[in-house]
Every structure is written in structure tokens, then in C-alpha cells.
């Protein structure tokens, strides 16, 4: 096998007209490799690699470049975002969380019309996680814009509106209303919703439907477009490809895994809606698998979601090719987790002599397979 250094030019998009010169590493000849090195995964050749040569200068965590480019001008200050449905509209945690230190905020799922959601109980703890069946309760896109956009516009952190709908038309109409609204930095399509037009089958489980809704929204808005994958499918790859081909700027993965819990007396399902979505650490191996597969199927950036709780989770998802992560359920136990993870990521990079976190990306991917998109990885100030 012949691991190649990342090709930097294919998806390169100069940001603000600047491109940093990338210091080239001396190429080791294939024969000089120790057996251990031969199996080493290829790594992006970005930034000085003090991890391979003794560091000449100490790197402070504050010097580590944590920025992420998700495409179409959506640049996150750091790769730790908060996941839709777990952080409301960004204001609920008040002084407990400094939103300006988050990498990005995905707000609660937003639909065209107000929705009252599912009957309670809506949440319950399960081993290593929880189930939720909120049922997309939200005041509708117009009210969301009116109530929150002005506040969002004052934040440094990009706010991405999570959009849901029951028909292509609904998604498109919501996207159209969000287009050009100051404070709205992007759209994340939650396609784990029943497509009423297609007999209630979820958009997310069918490559054709997923591609169709993505393409339609793509035509309706110039906003950066993220599409969120559902794990409740047999094979994610054709779906991921269809979404990428339809013009999405990035994928986010994954949404919750369908499950149920029982009442204490075991006389009925516990949740008012019977079914709920599993989230939390229990979900992580599934998310890791899907990110691993999606990254190799597409060449747009992938943002990982599922059980992120500690730095090791972040490092794992980066290693399978994600460019950023979203933290959801872990916020409930400790709302300071996302900010702490960003700090710990910077500290870990500094300790290893890395000037940019992107060196951590894709280290665990098979060498022969396609490279993950470097669009988000590539951004240099």
C-alpha cells in the first residue's frame, strides 16, 4: 500500500483570498519504513509536524487553530457544536454557558407551522443514554425568526437552524423564509421526518427522497446547507452520496436511533408517543460506524453526532474523518461540556506540538479508500 499525502488542491477554497504555504515534510522512502509505520494511516500534511520532529517552540493552546470551514462561508470558531434539540434556541442556559465560546449552535427543529409535539412523558433515561419523543414541538419558523434571530445576530458563534417538515414543499418554504435573515448562519435539514406524500416513509431512509429534498432546498437558498443522517437505515452510503450529489455543503451524523422503554409496571410503553429516539453514550459506536462509512462515501465535510461526552469521543470521531462534532445529551448532565471539550482539544494539540487540530482528522481511515473531504480541513487564515 502506498499512503498518499492529502491532495490539497482538489477542493481547496481560499478563504479571504489568503492561502498559507504548507510546509512540506520530507518524504520518507517506502523502504525506510518500520513495519509499524507502514500501517500508519495517512495524515493531512498541514502545519508543522512537531509531533514527528522534536518541538523547537512550545505551542500554547491559544495558538492552536481550531477553525472549521463547512463550506459556503460557514466557518466555525472551533469544532465543538451543540446538537439540535438539546440546547433550545441558545438562550435557555443563560449565564451557565458562554455561547460565544461554542463552535456552533444547532437550534431546535423548526417547521413551517407551529407544532405542539407529542404527549408526555417525552424523555426517560436508559442504560448509557436516554430516549426522547419531543415530536418537534416548536412555534413555527416565523416565530422563531422573530423571537431569536436578532439575538443570534449579536453572537460570534454561528447559529444553524435545524429544519424539519413533512413534505418537500414544507422544507423549501422554511428554507426560503430563513434565507437572508441576519443571525441565521446555515440550515441543518432534519430529514428523519415522515414524508406524508410518500405514505409517511422517512426522507432519511430513502436515497431518492433524501436527494430530492436536499436538491429542492439547495435551489431555494444560498445558506450553507447541512443534512443530518438517520442511523435507522440498512446502508448509509447511497443516501449520503445522494445528499452530497444534490448539493449539500456538509453532512451531520447521526440523529437518534429508534427505540422504546416500558412503564415501571410493564403494562405499557413508557413514552406518550410509544417510540423515542436513543441518544447519549450508548449511541456512540453506531455513530462512529456511520461517520466512518459516510466519510468514505462523499467528499463533503462530515460533522459527527452521537454520545460525545469527553475528549476521547471527539478524538475518535475526528479519527474516522469527521471535521467537527456536536454535543447533545451530555449537555444535560453538564452544560459546560462543549466549552471544556474545545479547551481540551486545543490543549491536547498544543501538547503534541500541533498548530492545528486538523492533523487529528482521518487517522483511522483505511489508506486505500477515498480521502475525507478536506474542504473543512483545509481552511487556513
Amino acid at each position: 500500500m502506498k499512503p498518499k499525502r492529502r491532495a490539497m488542491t482538489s477542493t481547496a477554497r481560499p478563504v479571504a483570498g489568503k492561502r498559507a504555504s504548507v510546509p512540506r515534510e520530507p518524504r520518507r522512502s517506502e523502504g525506510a519504513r518500520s513495519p509499524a509505520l507502514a500501517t500508519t494511516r495517512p495524515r493531512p500534511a498541514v502545519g508543522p509536524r512537531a509531533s514527528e520532529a522534536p518541538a523547537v517552540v512550545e505551542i500554547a493552546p491559544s495558538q492552536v487553530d481550531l477553525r472549521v470551514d463547512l463550506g459556503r462561508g460557514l466557518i466555525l470558531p472551533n469544532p465543538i457544536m451543540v446538537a439540535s434539540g438539546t440546547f433550545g434556541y441558545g438562550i435557555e442556559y443563560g449565564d451557565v454557558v458562554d455561547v460565544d465560546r461554542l463552535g456552533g449552535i444547532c437550534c431546535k427543529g423548526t417547521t413551517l407551522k407551529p407544532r405542539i409535539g407529542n404527549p408526555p412523558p417525552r424523555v426517560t433515561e436508559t442504560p448509557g443514554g436516554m430516549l426522547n419523543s419531543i415530536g418537534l414541538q416548536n412555534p413555527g419558523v416565523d416565530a422563531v425568526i422573530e423571537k431569536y434571530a436578532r439575538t443570534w445576530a449579536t453572537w460570534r458563534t454561528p447559529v444553524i437552524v435545524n429544519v424539519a417538515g413533512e413534505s418537500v414543499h414544507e422544507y423549501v418554504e422554511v428554507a426560503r423564509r430563513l434565507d437572508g435573515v441576519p443571525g441565521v448562519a446555515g440550515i441543518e435539514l432534519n430529514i428523519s421526518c415522515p414524508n406524508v406524500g410518500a405514505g409517511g416513509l422517512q426522507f432519511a431512509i430513502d436515497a431518492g427522497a433524501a436527494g430530492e429534498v436536499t436538491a429542492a432546498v439547495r435551489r431555494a437558498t444560498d445558506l450553507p446547507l447541512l443534512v443530518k443522517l438517520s442511523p435507522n437505515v440498512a446502508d448509509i452510503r447511497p443516501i449520503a452520496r445522494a445528499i452530497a450529489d444534490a448539493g449539500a455543503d456538509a453532512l451531520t451524523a447521526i440523529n437518534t436511533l429508534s427505540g422504546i422503554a416500558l412503564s415501571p409496571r410493564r403494562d405499557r410503553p413508557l413514552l406518550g408517543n410509544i417510540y423515542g429516539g436513543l441518544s447519549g453514550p450508548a449511541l456512540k459506536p453506531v455513530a462512529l460506524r456511520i461517520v466512518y462509512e459516510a466519510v468514505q462515501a462523499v467528499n463533503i465535510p462530515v460533522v459527527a453526532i452521537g454520545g460525545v461526552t469527553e475528549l476521547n469521543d471527539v478524538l475518535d470521531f475526528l479519527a474516522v474523518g469527521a471535521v467537527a462534532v456536536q454535543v447533545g445529551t451530555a449537555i444535560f448532565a453538564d452544560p459546560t461540556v462543549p466549552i471544556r471539550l474545545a479547551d481540551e482539544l486545543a490543549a491536547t494539540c498544543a501538547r503534541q506540538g500541533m498548530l492545528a487540530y486538523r492533523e487529528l482528522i482521518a487517522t483511522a481511515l483505511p489508506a486505500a479508500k477515498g480521502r475525507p473531504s478536506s474542504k473543512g480541513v483545509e481552511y487556513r487564515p
Partner: protein
Amino acid sequence: MRLASAELVDSREILPGQWLQAYHAPDLAVGSRAGQFVHVRTGDFSGLVLRRPFSLNTTDPATGIVTLHFRVVGRGTEWFTRLRPGDAIDLLGPLGRPFEVDPRSQHLLLIAGGLGIAGVRMLADEAIRAGRQVTLLFGAASARDVYPSSLLPDEVEYVVATDDGSLGHHGFVTELVTGYEAWADQAFACGPTPMLAALAQLVAGRRDRLGVAKLGRKRGGGKTVAAGSPAARRKSFLQVSMEQNMGCAVGACLGCVVMTTSGTPQRVCREGPVFAYDEIAWEGGW
């Protein structure tokens, strides 16, 4: 609302499976009000991903002590019972909206079912400090579950009902209410939802039974206040403290809602846990 570390000072099992714990948490002891709650993190991280909401049972600004009263229902609550004095826990609070006592109310009727006592216990302290008279109606399955009177202020008139008649009135606590509705200016309840629903129904019929002249106080007719506002709740004869499974406890996840008569679900953690009885759609409504 803030995240605070609190040190366990005292812990004991006051009733079978029910614990009373005292924590040193000066920030919370000052500035919290009766009806509010805290969201407490368990230190057992082997698969427990959610905090546990507990009513603020009592607070003492002078000593910085807050007490929590809970029942052991699972691994999370069990973990708390194994804490030793000096151990620290992580509290998020104070959360939710408190009980609103009308300034003119002199006679407060508190109604608690079982562990619901933790929801109204602090209101007894507040009311007595403000020079009001308090009657507490308490219902439990049997004598062994009855909240010890030694844990109540002396000034509180304490009336007990048990389902099996082993102590006090034989029957439901709700059956005691009509005996006090003429005396009471306002009532405040916490307990199982069927109990609260029964109380709401009783109170809805109160006007007919007592006649307008015997209402605890005159209702100001003119000014209308927005339903759900503190002012509207302050005017309500009965306020109830609701319970619901919670995720975030700050209003972010919409996991904890109850249906209201306005047709919109309200968050127990944010708009509640205290509601006026006529805000709640007791039959559901989804």
C-alpha cells in the same frame, strides 16, 4: 440559575426509602423561593446521563443550608444515599417559578400527597416567617409513610389522612379539603397527578358551594392579567406543583411539558413547576 457545588452536611432516612439530606450551598440558600427546584448531578457515571430534579425542601439563608427530601426509586437516587458528610455534589438551580402568595392571604392551606410534601414544605416556612397561618393536609398510604411532625414548624396545623386508616382520617387527603376551604384564603398542593386533578375539580366547584360572599377575599374585577403570569397565579385560589420527567431542566429540550387549557404545552421546568389549577388541561389534550 447557576451551577454550584454543595457539600453534604447531614443525611438520614426519615421514612422507609425516603431520605432527608442537608447540603451547604450558600448561593442557593439565598435567593431561592418556595416551589423552585434544583437539578442534581449524580456522581455515578456508569451509564446515568441525566440529572435528577429535586424540590428545594427547605433553605436557610443564615446557615447556607438547603435540604432535599427524596425517595429512592432507582440507581441515581440510591447513589445519593451513599454519600458521606463532606462529599460534594453538583447542583443546577434554583430553577422554575415559585409559588405566588397573594399579599392579602392570611390563611394558607397546603396539601401534600406522599413525597409531594417536599414541594410545599418550604412554603410553610416562608408563610410563617411572614406571619401567616398554615394548615398542612398530608396524605399517605399508611402510618409508616407519614411525614414526621417533628420536621415541621410548631406553628403549622398538621392534619393527616391515610389510605388504610392507620393514622388520622381514613381515606384520601382530598376528602379533608372541603373542611378547610372556607377558612383558606389560598391553597397550594403537590403530589400525584390524580390527587391534583381531584383538587382542581373540588376548587372549580368551590364558588358554588361557598357563594361569592364567603370567598376568602374579593376578586379585583377590572384588570386582566395574562394567564400563566405570576400576577395571574397570585390571584388563583389553588396553585399546584407539577411533576414530569426532565432532561435539561432549563427549558431547552421540551422534554417536561404538560398540556394547558390554552392548548399550548408548557414546560414544567420553566413555566412551572407551579401552575394555577385552571391552567392545566387535566384530561390531557393531545
